[in-house]
């Protein structure tokens, strides 16, 4: 179970914010092209920061608490983090726009 620790946190973030799209009416996942155009530079910029910081040993990950899939020196969870957290923020922002 341990290796699902980090990815489980991300799954919880997606699950908790999903009603903002499905119920409240935020339109984020339903604008995939706009979402992709927004996320691409975000992922590139923050992944570069993350890769450099990991190389310089600013931080590291518990090998037992990640799935073990790595990409360019980062656990796959880090890449997913840069998609999930921005998506959660956009859902919040768009949900607040619906409420007005």
């Amino acid at each position, binding site marked *: 179970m341990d290796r699902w620790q980090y990815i489980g946190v991300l799954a919880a973030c997606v699950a908790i914010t999903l009603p903002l799209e499905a119920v409240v009416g935020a339109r984020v996942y339903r604008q995939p092209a706009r979402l992709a155009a927004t996320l691409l530079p975000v992922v590139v910029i923050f992944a570069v920061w993350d890769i450099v*910081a990991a190389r310089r*040993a*600013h931080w590291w*990950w518990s090998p037992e608490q990640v799935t073990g899939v790595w990409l360019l020196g980062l656990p796959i969870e880090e890449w997913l983090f840069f998609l999930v957290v921005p998506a959660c923020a956009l859902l919040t*922002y768009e949900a607040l726009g619906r409420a007005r």
Partner: protein
Amino acid sequence: MPAEYTAAAIAAPVAVVAMELLALRTGLFREARYWITVAIALAFQIPVDGWLTRAGRPIVQYSGDAVSGIRFPWNIPIEDFGFGFALVTLTLLLWRRQTQRAKVRDHG
């Protein structure tokens, strides 16, 4: 000289704010819902990041040389909030720019 992550966690929010004020000018910072979104995002960062950095069995560990050593709340390095603010703000800026571009395309 601040530690490297400390310096980066200050520089990143400054850079993102400067990008809006000097280049993108989307008007995001004049919107109440932007500030509410940031408040909600930083509030949710506490349980999520708190779990990732929890004392005893952290999922992410930090070099003492890279951080200020200030950890609040729980065991979260204070720097993570600069990282989080920059991540969320950059995302919302680019999203808003996309929205404005689409409006120009549709109605301009």
